[in-house]
């Protein structure tokens, strides 16, 4: 039922935006933003359920919690960056949207730095003349 509600509100918002955009483009942008936030807030409980399920799965399989935390952070960064970029793109500012996406990509890559450093350290340590790491 939730999906029907969300689709209904989405259609309504789209019609409203189309009507308002002619008169006040600013309010159209605000309406789109509010709709996005409302959908996000409506689904936050379900996201929490999915996350707790994944956490339980990871806990049972003995996977390190650091991995799971990092993965969830990556998903969060990806979603937030995407959300922000789309809102800005809706406002007609593609360049700003691409900057937001770039920031998201960089933050995701920063998450990989410790893993890469550990792997490189290990490989250097394995080599006989690896500088005594």
């Amino acid at each position, binding site marked *: 039922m939730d999906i029907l509600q969300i689709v209904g509100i989405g259609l309504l918002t789209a019609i409203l935006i189309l009507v308002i955009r002619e008169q006040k483009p600013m309010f159209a942008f605000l309406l789109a933003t509010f709709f996005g936030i409302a959908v996000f807030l409506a689904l936050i409980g379900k996201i929490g359920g999915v996350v707790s399920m*994944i956490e339980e799965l990871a806990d049972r399989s*003995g996977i390190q919690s*650091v991995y799971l935390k990092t993965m969830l952070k990556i*998903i969060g960064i990806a979603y937030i*960056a995407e959300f922000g970029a789309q809102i800005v793109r809706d406002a007609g500012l593609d360049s700003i949207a691409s900057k937001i996406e770039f920031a998201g990509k960089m933050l995701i890559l920063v998450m990989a730095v410790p893993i890469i450093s550990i792997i490189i350290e290990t490989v250097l340590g394995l080599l006989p003349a690896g500088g005594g790491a």
Partner: protein
Amino acid sequence: MIEALGGWLRQVVAAVLLAALIDLLLPNRTMQRYVRLVAGLFILLTLAGPLLSWIQGDMDAKLAAGIEWAERGPAVGEDGGQLEAIMAEAKRIGAGRDEQAAELAVKGLEAQIKAVVEQEEGTAVKTVKVEAAPSADGTLAVEAVKIRLADPGTAAAAEGGEPVAEVEPVAPVVVDIDIGTNADDGKNYDRAAPAAAQTDAQPADDGLEGRIAALVAGRFGIGTSKVEVDRASDG
């Protein structure tokens, strides 16, 4: 072995499943390459986990610290480096202080054991050596106590029950002798008994070590097996 292998396999499967799930959850394709890179690295890390922890023991801690840095480091910048340096310095100083405190505690315990043994058993103690090591929960635990008693000959010459001998003249209970002659023998005998015991105590040293060990164990809560008592052979 099989258990560890099973655990490792389970971790690998879980990491792959997690990566697939995250790939599925991604909002669009722009981030896909980057997320795949990180997920692939995680799978690689899980696959090589046993090898990594074999080569560098504290891999998990290092990884956790690295991720902490990745979240905070770039934003904090130089201050973070300074803070880290200060924290490291504080840890070093704290460790030095702990070591000093442990040394002091050991010295104090040695002095107390020496005083108690000398007071309770009346034997001269040459040295007391306490070996303590930090236990798993960070507290100091006594590993062994070595008590070296002074040579009995010198000990007897030094102290040897002389105070007791001096007491004897102070007991002119001879006054009682006038009252009852029958009881006198018993009393005389009783009075002689401690003196005899005192003189006997020096040769009968077989139980002295055990007694001292039990005394130290009971007084300081140290296991009897950890207390070692011996005699100084060279005076």
